[in-house]
């Protein structure tokens, strides 16, 4: 291992799912200190800070968050690709550590959306009582986040015969993982009655197809292999990372069932020198049940349009061949607004072998795939615990 190989040495979660005692910035800070403690360092060692900032009533950016934490970074990356931001900055973070530009990078996020009821699920941004910004074009037509994802799901069903049962399997699987996670929010199995009773919010998406909204934050610390040797945790190495953003708003999506996962996934796998067969578990942003299905197709785990039937053998479940979202995901564990950082935190916890009841046995590799916007900006990171 090269002495400057990037290594994850610390992870931390802030209090969730309800934390009325914390602001969004408070979540960033609590998660960051917990990650530092986990890594056996203090935040004074951080010289690179990457963050979407804090998501709440106010939108506090990376600079505000860095100052709030008392950091003095020589590298700031506030890339705002939504729920994939933590994955999308990873190529930059890894490069900065390899090149010597930074020694220790903190990636952090926090949100108080649930306590502040601040999440705007509908029309977009209002300024002086008017719809503002380019999202206005879709807002005038009655868009919502759910409705946009529903357009993708409906088209996927139309083209490939994907069914509600296929979507339901993703939701069922998430609950089974959550059952093994004492901190998860929805730990009971999804019953047939609940599935039947779940109403369409924007067809074909039902309430059970949608992620939750809670408070929470997460942080992850990267440093060099050389430094990591003196630190307490089993090193987890990000082997490769790539991102792709072929569009941002739904109107610019060339094909409703094709995403940047088809670009970022193969690039990351090629960089890592791996194929999909080498991946032991998936952490894919499950904003809605349709999202991991479309992502798995793009990443190459199954053919285009095949994800529905592909998951019906239970392979995504805890005892399946390809466990998905082993903490319960955004559908059943935690989704504070932008889930990207939590995908990587769970991958690291699993590969350390410290995931407790939900530990997947003998896992050596994990793939995290963040999806930001409307499956618009995709970030893929591949981790291993095998120090080659």
């Amino acid at each position, binding site marked *: 291992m090269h002495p400057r190989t990037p290594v994850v040495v610390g992870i931390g979660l802030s209090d969730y799912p309800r934390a009325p005692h914390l602001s969004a910035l408070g979540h960033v800070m609590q998660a960051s200190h917990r990650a530092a403690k986990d890594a056996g360092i203090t935040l004074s060692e951080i010289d690179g800070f990457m963050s979407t900032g804090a998501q709440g009533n106010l939108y506090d950016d990376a600079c505000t968050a860095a100052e709030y934490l008392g950091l003095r970074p020589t590298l700031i990356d506030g890339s705002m690709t939504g729920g994939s931001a933590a994955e999308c900055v990873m190529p930059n973070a890894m490069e900065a550590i390899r090149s010597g530009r930074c020694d220790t990078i903190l990636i952090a996020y926090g949100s108080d959306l649930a306590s502040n009821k601040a999440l705007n699920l509908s029309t977009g941004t209002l300024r002086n009582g*008017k719809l503002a910004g380019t999202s206005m*074009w*879709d*807002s005038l*037509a009655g868009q919502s986040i759910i409705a946009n994802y529903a*357009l993708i799901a409906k088209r996927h069903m139309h083209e490939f015969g994907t069914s509600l049962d296929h979507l339901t399997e993703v939701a069922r699987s998430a609950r089974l993982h959550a059952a093994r996670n004492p901190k998860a929010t929805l730990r009971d199995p999804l019953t047939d009655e609940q599935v039947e009773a779940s109403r*369409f919010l924007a*067809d*074909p998406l039902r309430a059970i197809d949608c992620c939750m909204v809670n408070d929470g934050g997460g942080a992850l610390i990267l440093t060099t292999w050389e430094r990591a040797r003196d630190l307490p945790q089993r090193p987890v190495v990000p082997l490769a990372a790539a991102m792709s953003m072929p569009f941002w708003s739904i*109107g610019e999506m060339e094909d409703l069932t094709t995403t940047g996962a088809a670009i970022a996934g193969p690039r990351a796998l090629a960089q890592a020198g791996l194929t999909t067969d080498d991946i032991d578990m998936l952490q894919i942003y499950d904003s809605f049940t349709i999202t991991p299905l479309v992502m798995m197709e793009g990443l190459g785990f199954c053919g285009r349009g095949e994800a529905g039937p592909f998951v019906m053998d239970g392979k995504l479940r805890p005892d399946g061949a390809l466990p998905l979202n082993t903490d319960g995901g955004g559908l059943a564990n935690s989704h504070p607004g932008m889930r990207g950082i939590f995908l990587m935190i769970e991958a690291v916890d699993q590969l350390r072998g410290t995931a407790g009841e939900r530990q997947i046995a003998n896992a050596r590799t994990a793939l995290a795939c963040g999806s930001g916007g409307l499956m618009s900006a995709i970030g893929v990171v591949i981790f291993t615990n095998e120090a080659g």
Partner: protein
Amino acid sequence: MDAATYFKLPGHPVPEILPEWAPFFDGCRDGSLRIETCRDCGRTQHFPRGQCMRCGGAVDHVAAAGQGTIESVTTVSYTKDAFFRTVAPYHYALIRLPERVKMTGLILGDAPQIDERVVARFGELSEGSGVWGVVWELDRG
């Protein structure tokens, strides 16, 4: 509900119109769907940018046929928006235009299906707002 009824509903949200966007909304007032077309490379784009996003060329605002095909559509039953709550359940769609652009649109009428044809209807976004917009009706004639 037809378009005439829709445009009589009070409280429709109105946009903050940037300089590059004004020709589109002026077009709606004139009953035409204006799509930016590059004078240099001939390519079309929507939403409007005031200059060609591909080559930087100047654009003309060309009246489109005002027709489209549904690429995907969802019936929205749940929304937190004060106006759209009064319209729900309503149909939100991605519409492909023969002018080689796509746009999202609200479709009036019963159970629109993928691949069905729709036509543009124009009106003032609530009386007195001073902003004209577009909704779509099914073309089942």
